[in-house]
Structure formats: C-alpha cells, structure tokens
C-alpha cells in the first residue's frame, strides 16, 4: 500500500515537472496556485489528523510571509533563510494556538482559531512601523535563484512543486507512522486513546506545529511570488483559513488523498468562476459554500469516503468485502453508515 503510493507519487511528480513545457504562462499561473493550495491544504490536514479543524491557518501563512518580508527589507536577510525563519515563527504561532487546542474541542477550538488569526491580522494592521500597516510591504524585484525572485513563472512553479512535494511526503509519513495511527485514533476517540496510555496532548501539539510550519513556508513563497505582503491578503480569512479547510473537508479531512483531491478540484473551479464572472463578485466563493454543504450532507467524510464506499460496493459484488476506514475524523458518529 505504502510502496505503491510512493511509486504513484514519483510518477505524478515527474509528469508535473514537464508541465511548464506544455502550457503557457497564463495557465502556469493557475498551475502555481493549484499546487500551492494543494500544499496549504495538505499542511492544514496534518492538524486535522488529530481531529483539530482549524479556521486560523491564515495566521501561519501570514506569519511566514511577514517574517520573510521584514527580514529581507529591514535586515537584508536572504529569502531562503527568511523562509526557514518564517517556518520557525509560524511554528511558534502553532505552539500558541495549541493552548486552546488542548483546552477546547470541536466548534470552540474552531472559533478560538478564528479569533487567534484575527487578532494577529489586526495587530499586523496596527503595527504600522513594522509591517507597513494596511498598505503592506513590497518585495523588491531582484531576479536570480539566490533571491528567490524571477521574471518567468517556471522557477516559481518548481519551487512550489518542491514545497508541496515535501508537505505531501511529511503528511504521508505521519499518516503511516506509529505517531500517525495514535493521532488518528485520538481524532476519533481521544479518551479511549489516552486510556491506552498514549500521550495525545503531545501528539496534537506536534501535529499542529508541523502543520503551522509548513503553512508558513507557503506564506513566504507567496510573498516572493506576488511581490507584495499585506494584511488583507496574506492574513485573509477567506483565502488561507477557510479555503484550505473547505478543500480538506470536501476531499475528506484526515485522509492523505482527500485534501489533494479537494484542492485540485476546487481551486480551478474557484479560479474559473473568478475569471468568468469577473464583474459579479461573490459567485466563485458561493460555489465553495454550495459544494461544501452538498458534500458534507450527502457524503460525510468527503469525496474520498464517497469513492471508498463505491469501491466497497463494487468489491462486495465480487465477493470480497474488505473496507479500509480512512475517514474517522468526520463521521465518527455516523456509525450506521459504516459497512
């Protein structure tokens, strides 16, 4: 199972590496966005392994962007080192958010995570001397690999592809490791897992910190890609808190494949709607809401569980009825749905 995943992953990655040779600059921009959202969603999902559904990941994304930008502009620090620093600062943010994570469950952790991200956004607007206030900071254009700054989109594409590959690798590794099993067990029944002697608190904090650090790396990348960092964009609740969470839920939170599927499917739809109905704001995001409500109500556990169910039904027809449960996080109370 794991080895076949690895082979498929390498093949997909190799195919994706040739993508810039086929498509033009405009489509490549879409490809960068899709790959970036796959990465952010996968990073978000690492926290969801343990059952933590955060709507505050924009905080980590923005912390990554701002750390890199401020280090570059005020101290002349190289963007690659700035990206690492951004990951560290975002991880620190994750550590901070783990205080409510350990005290609260379900909706109240979700709410606390929104409040957390909003506080950081408002502070970023307020601390004008440091962050440039609501106008934000502009990253100077200085092409070259050393500066992580380019005139073409190809290098950005390869960088974000690399980052996303790392995020997916980390996610797969955690999922199939001992820690991952314990984490997922804690996600479906925390008390029972603790009763078995697993220190779930440490696991949840580690998962959130890793998730935050990876999100911070994408934040730093986005600062270089868009050449601008501002609170309304880089701390955007819609873009970087809600969207990754929705991608994850639609695809199947807590699974390896779900978030990838969700982001690959939803990002182009959102981009297409944004372009096709340019004069009509709101429509692209409304689709997100409709798909979310539809998917959650019709197939709790996301697309991946829907596909699993279809496959299970197909297999049962042929006489073998083995089912692999990958969707513990969302449908724990829908036991009657289990086969």
């Amino acid at each position: 199972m794991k080895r076949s995943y690895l082979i498929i992953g390498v093949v997909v990655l190799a195919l994706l590496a040739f993508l810039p040779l086929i498509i033009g600059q405009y489509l490549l921009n879409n490809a960068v966005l899709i790959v970036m959202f796959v990465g952010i969603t996968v990073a978000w999902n690492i926290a969801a392994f343990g059952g933590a559904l955060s709507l505050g990941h924009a905080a980590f994304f923005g912390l990554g962007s701002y750390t890199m930008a401020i280090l570059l502009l005020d101290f002349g620090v190289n963007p690659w080192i700035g990206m690492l620093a951004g990951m560290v600062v975002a991880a620190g943010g994750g550590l901070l958010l783990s205080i409510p994570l350990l005290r609260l469950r379900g909706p109240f952790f979700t709410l606390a995570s929104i409040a957390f991200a909003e506080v950081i956004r408002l502070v970023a607007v307020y601390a004008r001397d440091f962050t440039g206030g609501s106008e934000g900071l502009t990253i100077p254009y200085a092409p070259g690999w050393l500066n992580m700054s380019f005139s073409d989109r190809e290098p950005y594409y390869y960088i974000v592809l690399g980052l996303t590959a790392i995020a997916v690798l980390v996610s797969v590794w955690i999922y199939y490791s001992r820690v991952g099993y314990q984490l997922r067990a804690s996600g479906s029944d925390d008390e029972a897992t603790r009763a078995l002697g697993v220190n779930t608190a440490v696991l949840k904090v580690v998962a959130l910190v890793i998730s935050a650090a990876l999100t911070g790396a994408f934040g730093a990348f986005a600062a270089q890609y868009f050449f601008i960092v501002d609170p309304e964009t880089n701390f955007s609740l819609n873009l970087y808190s809600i969207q990754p969470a929705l991608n994850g839920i639609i695809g199947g939170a807590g699974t390896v494949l779900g978030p990838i599927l969700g982001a690959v499917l939803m990002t182009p739809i959102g981009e297409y709607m944004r372009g096709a109905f340019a004069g009509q704001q709101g429509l692209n995001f409304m689709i997100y809401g409709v798909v979310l409500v539809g998917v959650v109500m019709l197939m709790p556990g996301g697309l991946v569980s829907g596909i699993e169910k279809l496959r299970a039904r197909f297999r049962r027809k042929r006489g073998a009825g083995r089912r692999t449960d990958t969707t513990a996080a969302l449908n724990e109370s829908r036991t009657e749905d289990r086969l």
Partner: protein
Amino acid sequence: MELLIQTLVAGVLLGGVYALVSVGLNLLFGVVRVINFAHGEFVMVGMYLAFWLWAGLGMDPYVSLLIVAPAMFLLGVIFQRGIIQPIQGTSANMKIFVTVGISIILQNLALFLWGGQYRTVSTSYSTSVFTLGGVTISVGRLIAFIGALVLVAALFYIMNRTMTGTVLRAIAEDGPTAVLVGIPVKKFYFVATGISVMLAGVAGVMLTPFTSASPTFGFHMTLIAFIVVVIGGMGSMVGSLVGGVLLGAIETLAGTYISPALQQAVLFAIFIIVVLVRPQGLFGKGAGTEEVGLK
C-alpha cells in the same frame, strides 16, 4: 470623566443589540443543540431587507419590522427543515462545516446580488441626538437598545411563563426524555430556530438607522455573538444579556482608550482568555457544554 461616561453609554446601548443577537444563538444552541456559524448572516439579511424596503418602497425601518420579522421566522423554519434537521444526529464537526457553508453562501449571495458597497438607510432621525446631563445620546441607538431589551424580556416571558417555553426548556434540559413523554420535538425545533433567526433579523433591522449594511457585516456579528454566549455562559439567557452589554462596553472603551484599530483584537483576546480560564462562562451551568466542545 465625561468621555468615560459618554463612551460607556454608547457601549451599553450597542451592547443591547449584541445581547439580542446572542440570545437567539443561545436559544438555538440550548434547544436544538446546534452551533450556528451562520447566525450573524441572518442579522445581515435582516439589515438588507430593511434597506431594500426603505430604498424601494420608502418604508421606515421600524415599520418594516412588520414584514421582516415574520419573513425571518419563516426563513428560520426553512433553515431548520432543509439544513439543520438532516444533520441533527451527526457529529459536532459536521454541524460546524454545514453552518460555515451556509454562512459563506449567504455572505457571497449578498455580495453577488447587491455588491460590496455599504448600504445606508437615512431617515429623519438617523443623525438626531439628545443630551442628558452632559451626555449625548443617539436616538436610533437608544431605540435599538430599548427595543432589544423589550424583546429579550419577551423571550424571558415566553420561556418561563408559557406552555411553549416550558416545552422548549424541557427539550433543552433533556431531549431524549422529551421525545419519550410524547413532545413533538421536531415541531418545537421549528419554533426555536424560527425565533432564533427572527431575533437576529430584527436586531439587523434595528441596527440599520445608524449602521451601514454590507455583506461581511454578518461574519463580524457571528463572532460577537459567540463571544457573548461564551462569556455569558451556554444556555444562560441572563448571561447573554449581561455578556452583550459588557461586550458592547468593552468594545467602545477599547476603541476610545486603546485604539479603534485594535477594538476587535481586544474582544477576540478576551474571548480566548475567557474560554481558557472559565469555559462555562460567567453564568453558565455547564450543562450540555461538553458535547459541543467545552470541557
């Protein structure tokens, strides 16, 4: 000193409306056991209804309550039947994301239909104020405050003195037993959600004379209402009232004495602190808080 009193009065008046929004959220939580992330969006819908009735028919916002209130009750019933009822038996996480989805749909539907600009109702009394002992009071805000108090009192009366209220409290206390003794629980869920959404819509209407409607206003109200409910205590109506007034006062005080830019940051910080230090809230009994995630 005068500034302090002025600030406090403005805050308490605003807090009345917060309390009205929050009792609705609290009612829905207590009876139907759903944490509704779309609650603030119903405030926004109420504001837009009032705006369009004013802009289209020249109807005074307070008169439009006669149309908006029943319309919002009906919307609540539809919301209960179409969205809440199918997910009622599922996990808390599912309920979060379905109501978050509804919030996104309503917010962006408003953006799509009516654009992102601020819509302001201007009436003859919109800007009128009067002075009482050196303190300036806005007429619109005072009416909203009094109206909110009257409605909260009416809800108290319904909940504690009528048969409907008794049944609703019974369901809130022990839903499964309420089913066993033959209460048509589903019907009363319609009543509870209807009232909850109606109160949110009415609060929106009462805000219109002095607040502009915009698509994102609802999300702000959702957060405020949650903070109020958490501070006041889940399931406690008195807590919501006190919490609402307290939060209004804190918000305006923070705006005057710290910085308008950090007004909301202060509220969110207080929310996180309260949730960590006293998760059952100031007046919470702690009943039923575990199943929605408060330990």
